[in-house]
């Protein structure tokens, strides 16, 4: 075939394409570097404080009191963690971290489980039954989403204290247990369950509770697991409410405990505070890591 005007010979065309490809390659590599640099900086910003806490928990009180910020591990790790776990801060609270961890664990667990149970039941009622005031009930739940805990904290405190629930697990947990968010999430999920499935169950002879137990709950497990992670972390990190409702060490949670351990500058066992902080981090992290599998499963299972 003849080369017409404007037609590039083949070899030259290939060479041009190659240089273009190389240029694109270099540009991409440069962009990769930039992306990575930004990401690494971000990770450092998030991770550095945790690293400092982790390292601080392995030094003795004197090092930290001198104002040093050690970035390498010290020799006192075991001692510090043992002291925090069994005795707590001798100079301030004197409540062992193990007790506070147990309180936090019980609270977070009961809040997470309680919220899931209550919200799955209310979502079931709102989605699968028609009764007078159904939409009113739904909107009433929805509107509570708009009210943060802080807005209703004083009336709630009054009610709880009148019921004599100060310094009890019940007082700590019950006011936090209703969840509009979880109810809405379950509602959205229930709306994706096809009507035919409900009808097939009706023809099979399953009543409402049976359908709930045999079909709705098993289908919701991945949603429940995802919610459990979020709600457990939410419960674990509660600060304001436990601060108001706990006045003694008996039901004190770890988040409150850390704050109380920090007395005046001279009295604070910083090495123990840091060890306690690391310990306080562990359960939420463990829950997230253990439940991650369920998250993935929930994402992969597209068919409901």
């Amino acid at each position, binding site marked *: 075939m003849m080369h017409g005007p404007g037609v590039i010979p083949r070899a030259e065309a290939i060479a041009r394409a190659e240089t273009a490809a190389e240029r694109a390659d270099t540009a991409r590599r440069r962009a990769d570097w930039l992306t990575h640099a930004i990401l690494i900086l971000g990770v450092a910003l998030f991770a550095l404080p945790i690293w400092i806490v982790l390292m601080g928990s392995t030094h003795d009180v004197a090092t930290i009191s001198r104002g040093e910020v050690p970035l390498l591990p010290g020799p006192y790790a075991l001692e510090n963690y043992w002291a925090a776990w069994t005795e707590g801060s001798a100079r301030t609270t004197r409540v062992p971290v193990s007790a506070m961890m147990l309180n936090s664990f019980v609270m977070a667990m009961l809040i997470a489980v309680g919220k899931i149970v209550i919200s799955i039941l209310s979502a079931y009622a709102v989605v699968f039954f028609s009764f007078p005031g159904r939409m009113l009930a739904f909107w009433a739940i929805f509107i509570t989403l708009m009210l943060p805990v802080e807005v209703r904290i004083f009336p709630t405190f009054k009610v709880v204290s009148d019921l004599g629930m100060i310094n009890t697990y019940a007082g700590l947990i019950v006011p936090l247990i209703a969840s509009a968010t979880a109810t809405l999430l379950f509602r959205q999920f229930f709306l994706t369950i096809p009507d*035919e499935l409900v*009808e*097939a169950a009706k023809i*099979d002879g399953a009543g409402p509770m049976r359908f709930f137990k045999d*079909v709705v709950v098993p289908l919701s497990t991945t949603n429940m697991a995802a919610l459990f992670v979020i709600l457990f972390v939410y419960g674990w990190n509660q600060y304001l409410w436990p601060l108001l409702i706990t006045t003694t060490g008996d039901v004190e949670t770890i988040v409150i405990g850390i704050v109380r351990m920090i007395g005046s500058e001279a009295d604070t066992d910083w090495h123990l505070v840091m060890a306690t902080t690391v310990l306080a981090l562990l359960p939420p992290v463990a829950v997230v890591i253990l439940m991650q599998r369920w998250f993935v499963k929930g994402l992969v299972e597209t068919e409901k």
Partner: protein
Amino acid sequence: MATLELQGIRKSFGTVPVLHGIDLHVAEGEFIVIVGASGCGKSTLLRIVAGLETATEGSVLIGGADVTRLEPKDRDIAMVFQNYALYPHMSVFDNMAYGLRIRGLPRAEIEERVRRTAEMLGLGELLRRKPRELSGGQRQRVAMGRAIVREPKLFLFDEPLSNLDAKLRVQMRAEIKRLQRRLGVTSLYVTHDQVEAMTLGDRLVVMNGGRAEQVATPMEVWREPANIYVAGFIGAPAMNFLHGRLCSEGDAVDLRAGCAIALAAPPAGVKNAEVTVGIRPEHVRICGTGAVGAIPLKVDLVEPLGAESLIHGILPSGEELTVRTNDCSPLAGTTLPIVLPAEHLHLFGEDGRRLRLAHARNAAARVRAGA
């Protein structure tokens, strides 16, 4: 096994009426297909029989007992849904066994029944699988199995084949028919597909706008459609409709397309009136030019189907006509002389109802003798 009787079923959603009084008697073991375009109320009717909807008026009798006010579970019916509605988290075995467990049957009997049904449907190997691990056809079969294992008085099918591909649909259609014959369970089957309706049903209920337009065997519906709607709905490709006028003696019809066709006997009580003349594409004959009563058809489009061809053309009156033939495939743009045989004409009055013709065959013989 049981009879089913529907008496004056009416249904309105709010102020919108969807069913205008349906009466139907289904004999024991009969396979009834309810067919109609979407929105004609056929699914609503099925759901009323199932008890998933309540009729505004009228009653449902299964095996002679009035079940109008009973819950679905107390009606002893089984239903196969369009999207199968299998429980996604249960194995095939559990899907089939669920209804039996709720009924409190002994474990051994459940096991026995499920295994037997699964064998019958060729699902024996799949009992441990979850629905998502099955193909469309297998899911369909599990849905059938779930219905069969219950040994109900009545099977209800709500467009069970419309989610399958064409080949599988034909296969499952035959399978459903065979199963129904074998089990002899009275069945009600809803579909919008007229081929499914024709092949499956002992009798058809052709529905339109919330009314049963015709209830008859498939061949009756095809041969003597009760009105223009049924005539146009059943049969593929659809029947051709032409304008015509019944002459003053009532024994011939003048087509607007430009020919007169003699009829043996005038339709009772109708003369000198506008009529709609229907003829199926397979009944139009292609003849030589100059034949008596030939109408020139201008060929617009030819669709070869292999064994036969569909010829779409335009008559001198501007009306469209489809011819189905197996011995000719003309080029588009040419003119084809055609004859409409009198014995195959369907006449519909101005109200759209069929006009009954007496001795149509003799009339045809006369026309041919005249030619």
